[in-house]
């Protein structure tokens, strides 16, 4: 399958008041791939993701998402799972999905049914009574039920139990196999995810410390984990 560039960042800068949050951030992602955004807390991962969604405008550099500047049009082609995001806890899963299917024009009811089954989401359950793992699965389900080309996940595994993590990883691998979705995933869960990434972007202190294709790294005898250690130790 032909790969196209889905996200392109060139020399992206972000300054909040006097603090430089991102400096000269340059990388790209291809369609049909899973890209890991890895780095310690406070490295600038969430800031970068918010720039890609168009929520924040960078103070310098160029960003293109599906060939356009992030904004209302690109937001419609992108689903985003924010860090510590919360779904309305007074609704049941079923009520939430009914609401979500109404607000997203690209909602696909067949995809919704498929992922409800595969991610084992109980539609009758109140969101307020869900465990972290159950809520994380419902959040991912919300991202996957839209026909978006780009899925951005900020720490999808934080506080999520092992079996839910495995189901989430399986769903991501399966969705990427279609060939036209790009996943950009910020995570600390390197062991769970390392055989899933095509490419890793290492980010620390607001700047890119390295971009590697994982099979090339392994060809040189490095694992994703050992590379991470070398860069950040």
């Amino acid at each position, binding site marked *: 399958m032909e790969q196209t560039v889905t996200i392109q960042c060139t020399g992206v800068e972000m300054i909040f008041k006097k603090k430089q949050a991102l400096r000269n951030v340059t990388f790209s992602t291809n369609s*049909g*791939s*899973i890209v890991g955004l890895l780095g310690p807390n406070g490295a600038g991962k969430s800031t970068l993701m918010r720039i890609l969604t168009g929520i924040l405008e960078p103070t310098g550099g160029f960003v293109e998402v599906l060939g356009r500047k992030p904004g209302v049009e690109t937001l419609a082609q992108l689903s985003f799972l924010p860090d510590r995001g919360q779904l309305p806890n007074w609704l049941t899963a079923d009520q939430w999905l009914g609401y979500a299917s109404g607000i997203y024009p690209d909602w696909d009811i067949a995809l919704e049914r498929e992922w409800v089954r595969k991610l084992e989401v109980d539609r009758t359950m109140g969101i307020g009574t869900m465990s972290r793992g159950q809520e994380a699965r419902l959040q991912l389900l919300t991202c996957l039920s839209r026909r978006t080309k780009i899925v951005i996940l900020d720490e999808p595994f934080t506080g999520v139990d092992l079996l839910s993590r*495995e189901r989430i*990883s*399986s*769903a991501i*691998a*399966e969705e*990427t*196999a*279609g060939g036209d979705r790009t996943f950009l995933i910020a995570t600390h869960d390197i062991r769970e995810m*390392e*055989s*899933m*990434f*095509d490419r890793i972007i290492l980010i620390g202190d607001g700047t890119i410390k390295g971009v590697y294709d*994982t*099979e090339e790294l*392994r*060809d040189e*005898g*490095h*694992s*994703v*984990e*050992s590379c991470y250690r070398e860069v950040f130790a």
Partner: protein
Amino acid sequence: MPPDMIWRIDEFQIDPSRPLYEQFVEQIRAMIAKGQLAPGTRLPSVRETASSLRVNPTTIMKTYQELERLSLLVTYRGQGTFVTNEESAITRSRRELARSAVARLEELAQSIGLTLEQFIALAQEEE
């Protein structure tokens, strides 16, 4: 049509510091060589495999392509990917596995100044 089998993650031993595709090729090749995967077995699709093993789908696609290049797998459009029914392809693969193992053994023998035959004789000698 469902596949005849499903991959399980514990069937593979994966070293995270070697190319994953190479390891899947080696291990599936060995399963075919020893008959653990019988000729004609229908394998799960790339999508199903990526999901059950939680591995990048491109890796699985490359693995299947390489095994097809080695004539160990055959893909029929719309039907799926199967272990070959050609005994000769499997025999050839077994022979290649044996040859490369013997070549490694031969190198080891030479490193202590022996021929392969002397090396084996030495190993089998009674104390």
